[in-house]
């Protein structure tokens, strides 16, 4: 478990977690802390409860139950002792902390004229541990490059929450910015602009990215996506624009505007597959108009494996690959990726190389 997470946790929880077996700690994806209820962790293998002495339990009965004081301390630390500075975050229901970890919050909503103003009595925390997985994008990237022009295609990454959208998007941004390791001379990389509304993609601290997002990448941190995309286009002239989690109608409207500005767009959205995103109110319009050239659909992880499907603009499968484990090397499955980076047929970039 990263040090940046450990120092946020209240002592009792940190003590219980640090006694977990090393391989469990290494694969930790989420820590769920709920006041007075069993301490839960989520790994690639699924959900388990944790006892005060660091034992893994399938049954919630013997698990450690975080106290009110634990929760108060956790909130104090993740807010940097300054809850007042996080009004926007509390309204949205999550805080991104140093290291890019996102902490989801639930409690009692305080309303003002019918709209959520902020949260009080926060008693449920979901610590989502951010990991950099260099090479995560390698099996997918060749499908996102037009082999004739070498241009990046408009692409939408689709998956349910917690399946690696952000990790994939971050590595895509990095590899596109740097040029893939195997074809750097033929395809030297593009100027990338990241609009990082939730500070998850780049994990900026004081404006400087905490993750490697590539040498030709500019990051607009904590900016609303719709506005940020146009700001980025006007100010930094990116060739590829990367945005995470298109959810609200105005995000999709901003996306459309960006696509019509001659910029290539890589975005992600929640959904089980093509049908889900096609059914969304505004994003669906873009899908039905075939604005996206490729869809990358990440399946749920089962038994440490994950299915990744690449679809064309009409939702027909182009290729399917499988990745082993969370963040492990991905190996191409069915469908040979085209050599996107140059006109030399038959050679394709090797998968799994770090960016």
């Amino acid at each position, binding site marked *: 478990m990263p040090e940046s997470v450990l120092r946020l946790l209240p002592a009792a929880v940190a003590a219980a977690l640090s006694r977990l077996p090393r391989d469990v700690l290494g694969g930790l994806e989420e820590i769920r802390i709920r006041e007075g209820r069993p301490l839960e962790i989520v790994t690639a293998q699924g959900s388990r409860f944790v006892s005060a002495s660091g034992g893994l339990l399938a049954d919630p009965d013997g698990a450690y139950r975080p106290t009110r004081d634990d929760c108060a*301390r956790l909130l104090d630390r993740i807010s*940097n*002792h*300054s*809850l*007042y500075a996080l*009004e926007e975050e509390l309204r949205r229901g999550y805080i991104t902390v140093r290291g890019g970890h996102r902490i989801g919050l639930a409690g009692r909503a305080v309303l003002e004229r019918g709209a959520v103003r*902020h949260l009080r009595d926060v008693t449920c925390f979901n610590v989502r541990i951010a990991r950099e997985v260099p090479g995560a994008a390698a099996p997918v990237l060749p499908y996102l490059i037009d082999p004739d022009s070498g241009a990046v295609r408009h692409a939408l990454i689709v998956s349910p929450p917690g399946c690696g959208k952000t990790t994939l998007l971050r590595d895509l941004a990095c590899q596109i910015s740097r040029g893939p390791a195997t074809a750097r001379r033929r395809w030297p990389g593009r100027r990338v602009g990241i609009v990082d509304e939730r500070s998850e993609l780049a994990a900026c601290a004081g404006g400087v990215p905490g993750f490697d997002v590539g040498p030709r990448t500019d990051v607009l941190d904590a900016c609303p996506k719709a506005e940020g995309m146009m700001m980025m286009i006007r100010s930094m002239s990116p060739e590829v624009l990367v945005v995470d989690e298109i959810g609200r109608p105005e995000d999709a409207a901003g996306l459309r505007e960006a696509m019509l500005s001659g910029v290539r767009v890589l975005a992600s959205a929640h959904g089980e597959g093509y049908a889900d995103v096609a059914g969304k109110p505004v994003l669906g319009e873009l899908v039905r108009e075939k604005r996206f050239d490729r869809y990358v659909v990440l399946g749920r992880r089962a038994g440490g494996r994950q299915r990744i499907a690449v679809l064309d603009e009409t939702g027909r499968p182009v290729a399917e690959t499988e990745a082993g484990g969370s963040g492990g090397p991905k190996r191409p499955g069915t469908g040979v990726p085209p050599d996107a980076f140059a006109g030399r047929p038959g050679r394709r970039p090797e998968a799994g190389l770090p960016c």
Partner: protein
Amino acid sequence: MLKLAGALLLVAAGALLGWMHAGRLAERPAQIRRLVRLLSQLETDIAYGLTPLPEAFGRIGRQATEPLASLFRTAAVRLERDGMAAPEAWRAALDSVWELTAMKNAEKEIMLSLGNTLGATDRDDQVRHLRLAVKQLESLEPEAAEEQRRYEKMWKSLGLLGGALVAVILY
């Protein structure tokens, strides 16, 4: 001759003690006023700057004069280095620094109760609590000034005369 020198020393010591005590009395209203100013500065940092507490404390600690500067500096260190929660850090800083100030327990109580909410609520609530503390401190200031007016001179003469008395008795 030696006796005379000793007697003079006694008088000087008595006068010094009186002066010091009077000085504390004179310092108290001034420190209350300064503390009020620093709390207003903290309010601005919180309400408009949305500055995180450790940073705001650190900045105020650099700008203020001693001994109030060390109050904020200590609180910032407790928060950042020792990972204490805000109320704990504030209490620890008050406990270690209060001795050095000329202020009394009434002021400390106000600061302690301010610490219970510091950082832990939304912006409007922070402003409310800071203004309340400022108001309470301001209400103590006339009393402190009155005490100064009444007792400052008395302590000075009392010290000098007390020193002289001891000197005379021993002479």
